[in-house]
């Protein structure tokens, strides 16, 4: 029996679980326009995993990166949820650098 895959599966579940508060809190305090930065952090994580020789650590960093990339695609819908009153709305968000450029891009949603 090879338990590595199962243990990694369970670890993945826990890491994805972190994605829920990440999206909710991130949208509340920062706003959905931070999505390119969140996606960037995720892509850096996935790239970094290539240079980690310890298998379990490489996997954890890779999945953490994937969670950030997925989370970046969920920020826009979360913003709509707060505007609908399903989650607390915060009017004083910290604006992202280059906000005006980001506003011209279509925020991803999958």
């Amino acid at each position, binding site marked *: 029996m090879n338990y590595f*895959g199962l243990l*990694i599966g369970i670890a*993945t*579940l826990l890491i994805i679980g972190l994605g829920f508060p990440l999206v909710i809190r991130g949208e509340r305090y920062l706003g959905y326009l931070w999505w390119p930065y969140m996606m960037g952090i995720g892509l850096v994580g*996935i790239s970094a995993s290539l240079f980690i020789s310890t298998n379990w650590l490489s996997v954890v960093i890779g999945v953490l990166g994937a969670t950030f990339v997925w989370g970046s695609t969920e920020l826009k819908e979360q913003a709509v949820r707060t*505007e*609908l009153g399903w989650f607390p709305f915060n009017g004083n968000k910290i604006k992202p650098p280059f906000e005006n450029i980001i506003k011209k891009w279509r925020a991803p949603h*999958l």
Partner: protein
Amino acid sequence: MNWIGLVAALTAFFCIWVGHVAVRKIEFVSPTIWFPTFIFISLGLFTEYLSLITAQLPLQTALGIAGITLLWDALEFIRQQNRIKKGHAPANPNNPRHAKILAEHSSATTIDLLKREPTGSPLLLGERLGVREKP
């Protein structure tokens, strides 16, 4: 270079994506939720079993992650039905189970309230219903 992290990241991302879309589509049309839940639990357990008997590390990792996401998706069917009851996801009047929910829960709706762009401020009740799901 160690590719195992990339394999795990791609597997996690695509399994979350496919699961996210599949749960919503299947729950929308399925007359029962126990049947898709049962199928996803079975597939998830079988995928984990395949992971346990696979010696090759990248494949074992991908199967381990895919199996757990299938088990999570099984749980999501009941969560999705609760979203329908609250009106947080659109109900399908042609699905007898959803028709019953529409009759019993005043919060349930056929309108997809999330299908809009953020405006930057909270929406008033009238504005909320302004956007209808495209036929």
